[in-house]
């Protein structure tokens, strides 16, 4: 399973390196969304800083939808999907590989956006730095859930519009946990229960993915 995961992750990341969709489309979208959030909130730096965690995770969630859509599009042509099936790869490994590749892309983008919040939304730099491990946890959870929802949505001819409808309700707890953790770090509050929620969600989506990805793929 781990060998399959490694091969699939490497393949997806190589496709990203060649196509540069993340660099030229996803990242600029995220930064533009962050700028627009700053403009919508107004010029009050204290107000911007106060609601920055929520805006940051909202933008990360929107960016995640683009990354998920892109990841599932890679195998959406019928011929490509058929070819992948004829390789008889371990389905759990395919799930882990796709989630790992998505995590690399999403975490890299989220890190850039996080430091964007220090410039655009006046988040203290030290708060941005200490929240990075939680951002890693949140993006890992979004990736695990995203691979599943991406596969389900890709079976529809209107996958780009179906994906947000399916995924956003499931992403809401992740968004809330991430935002509360980030806010707690800024205001020196307790964050353990939100981190636990993220860990629980990651384990749940990871287990479901490893066990059910094959059945979803077949259907």
């Amino acid at each position, binding site marked *: 399973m781990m060998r399959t995961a490694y091969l699939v992750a490497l*393949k997806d990341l190589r*496709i990203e390196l060649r196509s540069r969709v993340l660099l030229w489309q996803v990242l600029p979208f995220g930064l533009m969304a962050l700028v627009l959030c700053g403009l919508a909130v107004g010029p009050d730096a204290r107000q911007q800083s106060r609601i920055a965690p929520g805006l940051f995770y909202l933008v990360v969630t929107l960016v995640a939808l683009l990354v998920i859509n892109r990841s599932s599009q890679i195998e959406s*042509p019928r*011929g490509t999907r058929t070819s992948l099936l*004829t*390789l008889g790869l371990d389905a759990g490994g395919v799930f882990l590989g796709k989630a790992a590749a998505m995590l690399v892309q999403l975490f890299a983008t989220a890190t850039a956006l996080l430091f964007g919040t220090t410039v655009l939304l006046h988040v203290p730099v030290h708060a941005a730095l200490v929240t990075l491990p939680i951002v890693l946890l949140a993006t890992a959870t979004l990736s695990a859930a995203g691979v599943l929802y991406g596969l389900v949505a890709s079976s529809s001819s209107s996958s780009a519009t179906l994906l947000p409808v399916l995924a956003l309700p499931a992403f809401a707890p992740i968004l809330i946990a991430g935002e509360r953790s980030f806010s707690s770090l800024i205001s020196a509050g307790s964050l353990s229960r939100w981190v636990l929620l993220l860990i629980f969600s990651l384990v749940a989506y990871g287990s479901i993915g490893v066990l059910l990805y094959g059945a979803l793929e077949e259907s």
Partner: protein
Amino acid sequence: MAIASLRDIVVTAGTFPLLAGVNLELEGATSYVVTGPNGVGKTSLLRLLAGLEAPTRGSGHVLNFDLATTQRRQVRRNVGWLGHEGSFYDDLSATDNLLFAARALRLDVALVAPALERVGLGGRLRTPVKLLSAGQRRRLGLAWLLVRRPQLWLLDEPYASLDDAGRDLMSDLINHATASGATVVLSSHDPVRRDVVASHIEMRGGRIERVG
């Protein structure tokens, strides 16, 4: 010895019958051409033999794997599939595509470069698949079959998009595969080329009308 045996197999998509009671025996080291007009079930038959479709009714074995059970997934690892749709990742090069597939099946990656040379893609090793012509993509599919060396070749409209040289190459590889002991099943709605020695499987309305 039969390498595939199908008994009264029905395959449906929803309630629509793709195959409506197929009976067929395929022998080893033989070429078969599945003929018939569009929509009679040629591709569905190939997909069934590849383990990509589950029978709704009936029974069948391919390479000793039961198509009615989860063994169907094992069939896929043992057949060579050349579909009429694009089968590769557009953003990866011809070489990267074959290396990924070869590593996934633990095949010898040293076979990749010679296979690409053999099908005339030696000058396109680093070219992204999206920049290859339809005929070159088909040749890439052939290169994959050369790397994979399967026991059962399933080729869906293999001559489509190929120029004369490509068609000759395809026929040559099919004849070579059967001479080496493999079984080749190809679908075609065009008249079959004379340079391929093959038995005919004629289909009508999701059924096999005649084999010979």
